[in-house]
Every structure is written in C-alpha cells, then in structure tokens.
C-alpha cells in the first residue's frame, strides 16, 4: 500500500508544488489503512495530531452522516473553516489529503 502511495506522491509532485505556492499553510497526506502520516509539510507531531483528529474522528463522522441521509451518496470533499485557517480534506479510497490554508 505504501508503495502505491509513494508512486502517486511522486507523480503529483508538480501539483503539490503549485498548491504550496498559493496561500497554503501546509498539507498532510495520510494513509487510510494505518491512519498514519505519509507525507507532510508540517513538523511531524502537529501533522500527526491533525491526522488523528481530523481523519480519525471528523471525516468518518461526516461520511456516516452523508450515508445516513442517503445510502447511495458519498462524501467526496470536505472544508472546515475556522477563524484562523481553513482545512480542505479530500478523502480518497486509500489515502486522505488535507490542505491547511
């Protein structure tokens, strides 16, 4: 699983550079199976905390809300806005990308 992830990350390197060049504070790519951080532009402890909180609790909660309301529907993208930042979360099949801006 990690090898696939690494390949994907390598292929998307120019996209990642573009995202970072905009107003971003950083990003985290997390692997869904292990809920572990695969790649991040933050320091490791905050990235892990971010992943544990967002991916661990909020994303599954939102996914279950969406399925509850309509079983054929599926969460594709999520944006949490707070006073300081905005978290853009994109859960995919094997991994989840979170961008903070």
């Amino acid at each position: 699983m990690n090898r696939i992830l690494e390949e994907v990350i390598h292929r998307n390197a120019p996209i990642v550079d573009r995202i970072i060049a905009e107003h971003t504070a950083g990003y985290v790519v997390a692997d869904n199976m292990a809920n572990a951080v695969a790649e991040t532009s933050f320091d490791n402890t905050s990235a892990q905390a971010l992943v544990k909180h967002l991916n661990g609790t909020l994303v599954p909660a939102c996914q279950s809300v969406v399925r509850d309301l309509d079983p054929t529907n599926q969460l594709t993208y999520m944006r949490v806005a707070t006073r300081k930042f905005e978290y853009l979360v994109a859960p995919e099949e094997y991994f989840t990308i979170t961008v903070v801006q």
Partner: protein
Amino acid sequence: MSAEVEEMLKRFQNFKNIVGIMVIDNDGIPIKTTMEYNLTLHYAAVMQTLREKAQQVVLDLDATNEFTFLRLRTLRHEVLLCPEVDYFIVVLQLPCD
C-alpha cells in the same frame, strides 16, 4: 425581524443551485425550513451532532481557534453548515461544478 428573515430566505431560494435551506435551533428543532418536514428533522438531528463534533475537533487542534463553517461535498449535493450562537443554518445546494 421575521420579515427580514423571510425576505432573505426568499432571495436565496431563487438561486438555481439551492435545493433547500433550514434554520435549526441548538436543540435540534427546526425553526424555519424550505424543505419537507421529515427530511428536515432528519437533517436537523444529524447536522446537530456533526456540528458539535466539528467544534470539538477544532478546539482540540487549537484551543484558541473556533469553528466557523463546514462544507461537505458529496456526489449529489453540497451541504453547508453555518453555526451561529443560538442556532445553525444548513443549506443544501447542487455542487457548482
């Protein structure tokens, strides 16, 4: 005040993308809604738990930060959750792209 609220709701209803707007109390009781009642109740219950969860997550990540808005995009629609002090607003719209 109520006339203003009605006016606003009517204005937003005229946007093509909007499926429905709901104003829900902090206890999960819908105050105003433009959608069918049973569906609104369902959304109210479910969005209330979600709102509390999101608030908790944001506070956990940074105790000085505050959750201001949540946008869930799904295959069929986009759900916007806007929490206020005494109530919260849920808007259902078709995704823009």
